[in-house]
Each structure stands twice: as C-alpha cells, then as structure tokens.
C-alpha cells in the first residue's frame, strides 16, 4: 500500500486509521436519509459519539417522480438512530441531472397526489385479498425486526 495517498485521504487516515468516523465529514455538505423517509441536505456542523448530527442550512428535499422541491429548514438536529444513510455531496462536481426542480407548493401538491394514488391502490389490493380470504398485516403492526 502506497503511503502517497491523496491529501484528503491522508487527512482522514490521520485521525483514526482503520475505522470509519464522521470527523472528516464535518463542515461538508451532506445528504442524509432518515428512517421516516425524509431526505435532508445540509452542512454537517457537529456530531457526537452517538452519531447525532447537527445540520446547518438544511433543506428538506422531496422527490416525486422526476420533480423535486426544496423546503428550507434551517438548523436540524438529527438523532443518530434515525439515520439510514449519510453521504457527502460534492459541491464542485457538475450536477447534470434529469431531475427538475419545482416550487415548494408544487412539489407538496405532487406528493399529496402521489400519496393519494398509493392509498387508492392499497385499498383496492386489500379488498381483493379480503375477497379471497387472505389478509396482509399492515406494516405498522409488524415487529420492526
């Protein structure tokens, strides 16, 4: 293994070699997916030993289809256990995406429609199953593990 790693990696390695740590992610822009499905984007300002996160200039991004909308949220403190994944966003990298940004109202409306459609299909499915004498327990009744 060459010791001539890029500076960034060397910096990382210096702290705690052989481990994963959030220390190097501080003050960088991140995207975090929470357990309730929300996506937050913000600058990670502080962490603690439980991986609780403090985000600055946070934006909640809602995706519906190919559209997305950003809701500015300010400062967020996320409890560590609610994080599904967390990844750094490279601000320098050119963003060529097919996604189209829309206004907040529009995206919320889209989301509402999406939820509605989902509920409709779910209802139909349950009815069909019921007719056949089967039942699928709802997700919130299941033991999480």
């Amino acid at each position, binding site marked *: 293994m060459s010791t001539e790693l890029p500076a960034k990696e060397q910096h990382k390695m*210096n702290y705690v070699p052989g481990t994963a740590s959030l*220390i190097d992610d501080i003050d960088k822009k991140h995207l975090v997916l929470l357990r309730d499905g929300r996506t937050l984007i913000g600058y990670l300002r502080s962490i603690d030993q439980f991986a609780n996160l403090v985000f600055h200039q946070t934006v909640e991004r809602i995706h519906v289809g190919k559209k997305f909308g950003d809701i500015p949220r300010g400062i967020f403190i996320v409890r560590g256990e609610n994080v599904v994944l967390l990844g750094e966003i490279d601000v320098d990298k050119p963003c060529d995406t097919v996604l189209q940004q829309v206004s907040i109202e529009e995206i919320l409306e889209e989301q509402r429609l999406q939820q509605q459609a989902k509920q409709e299909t779910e209802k139909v499915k349950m009815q069909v199953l019921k007719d056949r004498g089967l039942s699928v327990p709802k997700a919130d009744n299941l033991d999480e593990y």
Partner: protein
Amino acid sequence: MRTLTPTTNFFFFFFPCHYVVDVDAQVTAEEATSSLSQFAELPPTPPPASPPPPPPQLPVPKPCPNGAPSPPRHKPQSRPSFPYYQRGRARGYRGGLYREHMFEDPAVMRIVEGRPNIKSLDSAIVDFGNAMYRENFEDWMVPTYRKNRRDSGSLLQDSAIVCVIDGPRGRGQRLDSPYPFSCFRGRREPRGLYSRRPFCQRGLSQMQAPVPETPAFSRQPLTPRQLYNQTGRFISHSGRPCPSTPQSLPPKVLQLRFGANSPTPSPFYSPSSNPVQHFRFPGPVTQLHPQHKRLLSQKQRISHRKMEDLDPYCNIMTAKEKEWIIRLQMIQLQSENPYLEDYYYQEYYRRIEAKMAEEELGIRGKREPPKLTTPYITKTEAYTPVVHIEGSLGQVAVSTCYSPRRAISAVHGVQAHTSHEVPKDIRQQRLEVLSQIEKLFMTLLEVEESGRKNSSVPSESEGGQLKEKTQWTAEHIYTQMKQHNLGEPGGEFLPFLFVSKGKKLLARLLPFLKRESTLKILHIVTSNLPTLMSRDSEESLPVLYQPLRNVIAALTFSQLIRVLKDLTSSESLSTYECLTLVCQNKFGLSLLYALLSQGEKLLSSGVPLEPSIGDFETWTDTIFQVAGQLSQCSLVEPLNLPSNLLTLFCRYLDKRTVCQLKCNMESATGFLALPS
C-alpha cells in the same frame, strides 16, 4: 516521605484547566513536567503576549516572556513542601474525587496512571496541539523537583482545600460550574468573547494581578489555614476580571499525560480552538502515531485557514471536541484480544506491513502505515444484559421491546438427549454437524488466541498454565469431534471431514493436539482417502496438507508403514484402484509423496529405525506398487514435490524405471523432480 519546600506557589491550582483525575493517580514528576509543558503553549505570534499560566501542580511558575511581574521565580534549590497534603492526600483523593465524580462529565474515563517508562519520556512522541517552549522550561525545571512532585499530589485533591473552596462559594455555585474552563464545556462561555483568544491569556492576566499582592512565600511549610487563606484570595482575585465566566474554581481534575513528557515545540495551534489542554493518557501508551499527530496538526492548520475564508460557519465544532469524540471512540474500540474482535483489520494491517517490509528492502526510511492504537485503559466490567438466576434452567424469561416474551432456549438440550435413541434423518445430522463445527470453531479461536499469547509471552509459570489450558481445550475439541461417528469404527471425524469448514477446523486444530490424536487423525484421513477425495467437491482437502505433512515428518518408521498400509488398502478398492485415485487427486498425491519422502528421510538418516516384523517388506512392496502406478498413469500436479523421491526410487528400482518415473513426475509438475 519526601517533603516539599514551602515555597510553592499556590495560585496554580485554580489555573483554569481541566484535568482527569484518578483515585489512585500518582502524579509523577514526568507527568508534572509534561503537564507543565502543556501550558507553555502559545501560538508563535500571540496577541498581547502573555504566556499560559503554569499548571497547578507545579510549584514553580512559568515566567512570562513579556516581562510582566511574574510570580517569584524560584531558584532550583527551592522545593515545595506540602507535608500536610501528603498526610491528607489519601483522604483527600477520595473525598475530593468523589465529589468531583458527581459532576464529572460522564464521558470522562478513569485512567490508571502508569509508571513512566522509556516511551513516556520519549521526546519524539509529540502531543497534539502543544506549542511548548523548551527554553522556558529549562529555566526553572529542576530534576530534583521532579522527584518531589511524585509525592506532592495536587493541592486540589486535598479535601481540605476543596472544602474551603466550597465554603465561600456555596454548593450552588459549585454545581453550576464544576469545570469552569473545561475544554468540554468550551461552549459554555459565549463563543464570541473567548473563542478566538488563547485561553491562557485570560487566565494568566488574572494570575498576574494577584501575585504581587501576596506576601512572599515563606520557606516554612504553610499551615493548612495559611494555604486556605491564600487560595481564597486567589480565587477572589481571579474571579474579578471575567465576570461572565463562572467563578474560577480549582480544577478538580489532574491533568494526566501520556506521550510527550518532554516539551517539544509543536508547529501548530489553531486560533479558534481552546488552548486549554485536553485529556492525556498515562505513561507508556501513545495514542496516535507521532507522525500522525504532526501531520494531523499541520493539515488542520492549513485546512482551518482555508476554510475560514470560504465558510464563516466552519469550526463550530472545535478541535477539542473532535478530539474528544475521537478519543471516546478509540476507547470503545480498545480490546484485549484484537485478533478475536477485530480480525479483519488486524489481518489487513499485517498484510500491509508484510508488503511494506518486502518493499522496504529497497527503500529505506519508509514511513510506517498508520495503525490504530487505542489508548491503554483498564477495561471496566462488561455489563451482561442477560438475566440469569442461579438454579434456574436456562435463561429467565425477560420481556424486552424486541421480544415481548422470550422463550427459554431449550432446543439444543432436547436434541442432545434424543440423539442416541432416535435415529435422525440425514439432513438433521448434517445440520447438527454444521452447528457443532461452528461451536468448535469458536473454541478453536480461543485456542489459537492463547497459543498466540503463549508465543509472545516467554514461558513463565502462568505461561505453563496457559499452555495446559490450551492443550486441554484443544483435546476437548478433538473429543467432541470424535463423538460424531458415522457408525463404523474408524469413521470418527468423517462427518467433519466431509464439510469443508470441518476440514479447515481440523487443519487449524492439528498443531495444538497431542501426538496420539494427530496420529489418529492421520490414520482416519489415509484410511478414508478415497471417500474423502470423491466427496471433496470444493477441493478444500489441500488445507489439510500442511498440518498433516508436519505430522508425517514426526513419524517413526513403523508408524509410517502403518499409514502407508492404510492408504493402499481400502475395503472396497484394491490397491491398484486406490493408488490410481490417489494419483489423480492433488491432495492424495501430495500426501503420498510426503509419506514416501519421510520414509526416504528415515532410511537415509542412519537413525536406527526399530522396524516391526514385516515392515521392510511392506515398504518395498509399497514402493514398487507406487512406482508402477506413478509411471503409468497421468499424474496431477502435487502441492509439493519432495526432492528426495527420486533418490528413493533409485534405491529400489532400475535406472530405466527411474527415468520413466522422473519424466512422468516432471511432466506433471513442470519442474525437476530432483534439484540438479
């Protein structure tokens, strides 16, 4: 008991620093000096220059570089003496510490201070973030002083002092501000006010003021009362200049250090981070590789400067806080047997080192790859969450949020009882074997771990005990495996040997077993070789080759003959068929070669062989059979081709046959059967 001179400056103890204290801490002179050096730090171009105030333990204050009236500089001859502290120290430790512990940061760990050793005195081990001025030290650092430091302890730890300090302030205030200038409480002060200024400045300016006012320290030992008066005065004085900070209370915690005990100028101090020092760990352990720390500080310095231009909100989390978290995580990472708990990292690191060692043969002075070295801290008792009541059968049924009602795990017990009576089906059997393999593997890991410890620790009395235990455990695994029998005698171990993981288990176990056990295993393997070879779909038999080869190397002639007999005489197959199969299997062929090679070695060594009756005949017969086989069928490439095989054949066979054999063997392997 050593006595310290009375000419101690008492104003040290409320130097606004944060320390970790341990009940049994013995402040060593080295640590004292090192902690002193801690406070010598200052960025190279400080704003209104005042050096950091000296740490409390040290009786001799650090002189200010700017020439402000400094605390009386003590001549090397002066020794601080605190006889009463020594008396009361034992009590003081306890009393003061328990109180401290109440308010202490829960993340702070108890650190056992070790004796200083060579490493701790190593000046190459740099402490992070310290800018220390060697010259300042040498002015007033006294070698003899260091010895005395050992016994002086800290003023703060004396319960009497603590009481007095409590008194005027009252409990409320104490509760409010146990660590006035704690690095972890760094956020308590309004950031704007203090964050950008080196903390030491503030502290020292306070200190400077009261110092000239105090009467010159007399040379007699101060009575406790006198001392308290002093401290009271100092406290009040230091409290004045900064009303926003909590009243300065003596830092309750000793600053322990590890790593650098001699000061070294450090290149860096971040202006935004609190210069008040963070925790140090005792004596002999370095936390981060010294080059790590240098690089770390350099990188930080650069990044800090860059970042502040771009991002006004950066560094909300100070370096101190980051370090704290890192330390916390490191402590959680530490383990007594890393090979067991962190196998993959250890293996990875070992491979990197091996590779670098290879490369380094050409390149000198190569830097070591960074390794995670966790701080050395005695581990506290692990909390066992499983509730077990004595006399109960198995686990107590405890409701948790994940398992509202937990059944007692009795499944395995039931199975064990019925194993002899009820004939199990094949699948059940196999499952049992698999689960048994897993269990035995865990035991094997323990055996290997203790074996590793044995090799590192030279054999002492406990080494002998450990060896015994290792031996016993290994034999235990052996007997466990032996019980699994396919029905026939000589069928022990076979269920394990049919599973590739079982083969691995056996291969790793063999080095630890007694000789009889290893012989037994060799016997089993060779007797059932055809079956094993046919059922070895994953080709994992070769894993057994090396350990078995070691076993073979220790065989006597008679034993060897017996093994060869096993190999060549199977119940269902004739010798010819056996040998054919053997020749076409990598493992089998290698085993055969190993056996023959051992025979040749024994014969040519000249050691008296003590053969049994018929041994030599069997031997020669086998040779001829094998030779015939080897020359006729196509051979696979063996794992290893012993060099003395042809010598062996030359002994018994004519030249033509030998040549033929040679060609055949070489064509299989691709290299010469005999080193030319």
